[in-house]
C-alpha cells in the first residue's frame, strides 16, 4: 500500500476514533429508543460504523511503524 504521510496518519487516527464513538453511540441509541423503526435505523448505523472502524484499522495496520 502507498505509504501514508504523517498528516494522513493523524487524520486516520481521528477518523478511527470517530467511527468507534459513533458505532457505540448508535448502538446505545438502538437499545434505548422506544420507536421500533428508529431502533432499526440506529442498529444499521451502528453496524456500518463498526465496519468503517474495521476498514480504517486495516489501513492503519498496513502502515510500517
Amino acid at each position, binding site marked *: 500500500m*502507498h505509504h*501514508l504521510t504523517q498528516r494522513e*496518519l493523524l487524520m486516520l487516527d481521528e477518523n478511527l476514533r470517530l467511527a468507534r*464513538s459513533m458505532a457505540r453511540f448508535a448502538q446505545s*441509541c438502538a437499545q434505548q429508543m422506544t420507536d421500533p423503526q428508529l431502533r432499526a435505523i440506529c442498529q444499521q448505523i451502528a453496524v456500518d460504523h463498526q465496519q468503517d472502524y474495521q476498514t480504517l484499522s486495516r489501513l492503519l495496520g498496513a502502515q510500517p511503524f
Partner: protein
Amino acid sequence: MPFTGTGNPYYTPPSGQPFHTAGGIGAGSIQEPTAQAAMAAPGVSGTAALNDRELMEILLVQHKFAAQTMTNTILESTSPQYRQECINILNRDFTHQRMIWEAMNQRGWYQPPSPQLPQQQQHTAASAQWS
C-alpha cells in the same frame, strides 16, 4: 508538537500516546458519547432519559460533523486506496444522514423552513436596496 485534534467534541487526545494499532485501541482517554453519558452530562437536569427525538438530533449532528471531517481527510489524502476507502465511508455517512433526517421529518421533528411568499421576497429585496 502533540496532536490536538481538529475539533472533535468527543475526542481528548492522549498525551504521548502512539497511534492506534490495528490490533486494538490504545489507552487514550476517549469520552464515549453514549446515551447514558449524555444523560449524566453537566447542565442536564437530573438523570431524565433523553427521548427518541433528542437522540436522533444528536445522531444527525454527529453525522454532519463526521462528513465534514471525512471530507477534509479526502481532500488531504495522497494515497489512492486510502482516498477511495474514505470516499466510501463518506457516502455511507451521507446515506445515514438522509435516513436520520427523513425519519425525523416524517415525525415532524425537523421541518425545513417554509419558502418565503413573493410579497415577502419583494419587501426583503427593497430593504436590502436601501440599507
